[in-house]
């Protein structure tokens, strides 16, 4: 192990709160008051304030949701976009633990953490959006709507959240110093990963299958019997891209939390993952074209919805697919990282299209956007980022814990 790792390890061992211990309160507060934190704090406060309004005056007071367009940004972004991007944990787990590609291991803990937080916050978004959030456990415990795809999603998200938590706890136990518990949970890794693949395959595709029920409401360019396959496919791309992009961010902003092994591995991992995503995106593009041909909807391309559809599949699927291939071939890490961001945006655009813009497209008047709703979404995502940063700054996510440095898993 490098000298660098040891230094970090020694500095952190057993004293996770060293910042507060060494500084006096005013000093600590001053250290906290970075421009980033101040802006984040304001966004979070505004969001929380509006959430209070939502819980006291009803969903209608803070959203543009209407009788005809019942699902808004909370679900479009929090659930339909958040869940595919959080496929990071399951995809990287499969690559490393099942396929045995060990050189991706340095980023696995980070991918699992991102996945876990993504699901946790998807549930938080659900709690904001459900009319009666305190009944969240009803599909699990009180009444079973077995004909409902949403019933399946509810079960799977609940099970998978627990699964991801168990995958994440070894890092937590390392931080807390609970060695026995850690050893037990590490033993579960393979089982959890396979369980995670099962659950993820099903609920990622189920999110697409939700819309199969509304053939007359979803625009024919987006409605296809392949929706489940497409959703699963783009979730794999989204999860991989989130890992690529967040890995870039950690190297830029959280470098001091990482060990040399992690930092040194980033370039190679980025290029490798980029190559993988390129294949996934090209496949996705092909299925999209098959769906288009199969429905024989070519003539619809020459309409406003058609142009928007083309922007989506050319600009955010085909283009990144090509850029990934070019980037990984010419070993251009920066290009791959940029393309990952492009793909993440593409996944979000696709989910917003399917669950908002192309849905109910025949209604004469629709309202998509409410500033208050948007501010809540931004506020909650900011909380997620802060929680992520806190965990990465305290727990051994981007580094090995010194006690287990020489362990081979």
């Amino acid at each position, binding site marked *: 192990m490098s000298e660098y790792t040891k230094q970090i390890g020694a500095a952190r061992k057993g004293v996770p709160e060293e910042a507060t211990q060494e500084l006096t309160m005013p000093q600590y507060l001053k250290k906290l008051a970075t421009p980033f934190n101040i802006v984040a704090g304001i966004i979070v406060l505004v969001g929380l304030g509006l959430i209070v309004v939502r*819980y*006291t*005056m*009803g*969903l*209608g*007071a803070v*959203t543009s949701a*209407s*009788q*005809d367009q*019942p*699902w808004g940004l909370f679900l479009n972004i929090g659930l339909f976009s958040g869940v595919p991007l959080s496929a990071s944990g399951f995809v990287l787990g*499969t690559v490393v*633990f*099942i*396929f*045995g590609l060990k050189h991706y291991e340095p980023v696995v803990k980070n991918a699992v953490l991102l996945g876990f937080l993504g699901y946790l916050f998807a549930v938080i978004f659900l709690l904001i959006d*459900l*009319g*009666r959030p305190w*009944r*969240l456990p*009803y*599909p699990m415990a*009180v*009444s*079973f*709507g*077995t*004909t*409902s*795809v*949403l*019933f*399946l999603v509810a079960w799977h998200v609940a099970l998978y959240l627990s699964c991801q938590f168990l995958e994440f706890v070894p890092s937590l136990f390392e931080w807390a110093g609970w060695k026995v518990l850690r050893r037990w949970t590490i033993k579960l890794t*393979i089982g959890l*990963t*396979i*369980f995670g*693949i*099962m659950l993820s395959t*099903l609920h990622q595709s189920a999110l697409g*299958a*939700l819309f199969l*029920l*509304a*053939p*007359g409401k979803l625009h*024919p360019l987006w*409605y*296809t*019997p392949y929706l489940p*396959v497409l959703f699963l496919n783009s979730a794999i791309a989204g999860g991989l891209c989130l890992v690529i992009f967040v890995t870039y961010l950690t190297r830029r902003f959280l470098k001091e939390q990482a060990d040399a092994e992690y930092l040194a591995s980033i370039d190679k991992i980025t290029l490798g993952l980029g190559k993988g995503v390129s294949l996934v995106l090209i496949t996705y593009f092909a*299925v999209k074209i098959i769906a288009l*041909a*199969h*429905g024989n909807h070519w003539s*619809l391309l020459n309409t406003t919805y058609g142009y928007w559809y083309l922007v989506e599949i050319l600009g955010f699927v085909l283009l990144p697919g090509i850029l990934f291939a070019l980037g990984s071939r010419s070993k251009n890490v920066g290009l791959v990282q940029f393309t990952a961001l492009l793909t993440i945006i593409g996944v979000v655009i696709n989910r917003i299209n399917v669950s908002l813009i192309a*849905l109910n497209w025949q209604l004469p008047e629709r309202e998509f956007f409410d500033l208050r709703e948007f501010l809540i979404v931004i506020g909650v995502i900011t909380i997620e980022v802060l929680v992520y940063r806190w965990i990465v700054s305290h727990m051994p996510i981007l580094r090995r814990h010194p006690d287990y440095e020489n362990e081979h898993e």
Partner: protein
Amino acid sequence: MEKKLDVKTTNKCKPRSILSPDLSTVKISRRGFLKGNAALAGALLLWDALGEPAKGLAREINGWPDRYGMLTDLTRCFGCRICEKACNKANDLEPPATPFEDKSVFEEKRRVNAHTNETYTVVNRYADPKTGEPVYRKVQCNHCAEPACASACPVSALKKSPDGPVLYNENLCIGCRYCMTACPFYVPAFEYFDAGSPAIRKCSMCYTRRISKGEVPACASECPVEAITFGKRSELIKLAREKIVRNPDKYIDHIYGENEFGGTDWLYISGIAFEEMDFPSDTGTTPLPEFTREFLSAVPLVLVMWPALFGGVYLFSKNRSRTAEAGTENTKKEGNQS
């Protein structure tokens, strides 16, 4: 014109593409892939314990020939809104913002709105495209034979009763609003401005308040011109057909709801094309729950096969890396010896 064309295309292609997807064009064919492994299906007790989702509701529904329905004769309706008033009274709803006698509401196309919560039915005005005369459409839940809303509900708060009406149980509803996304007629309404106990609002055909007491639903009983008839659905279809046959000049030859989306228990006959009154026209005759059934029936197979598949890959790759490691160690030793 262009828009309509689009709609037609979808209409034709969708049911076909769902029921017999051209699997030869796709690599990943769920069905073929899964069928080949039908032997594994025996192990599906896990899902069966929860109730089998793939069971065809259609067969059950056809087994309820005595279920009730309603028939609205749109040629008779003259927009008096007495049905709205009767609905309000029968269901103890909120007093209306504009009185039920006020005809100015026809300037807009209205829908059942849970925010004001005045009625579970509204009447809208359209113009006969030929004569320009006003025609009226009464809107409420159509009590589908195989309701998309009920199949969508994750907690079975919405249920089709064997008597016909699609009923809502507020005590189970979690407020996810998937029923609203699913309903092809934009019927269920949600109380967006209630933070404490927001509920879905929709017509129940007066099932608990009247039918179960042997009374006719309020709108049908109050309508002054008998535009709404309550009865056994099978009888209503006969009645509708008779009316059409007897007055071919008055009615178009179409009973809306007989086959739309696999059939609805609320039926309509009209003098002008139903599209002219915003009835969904791209309906097909496949009940909407069919469109998710195939997906749900693939679920147990994934649950059974994935562990075997990925467990196998794991063992394989582990084995391979062991052999590789052993190989490198051997070479090292050899190197040391020499």
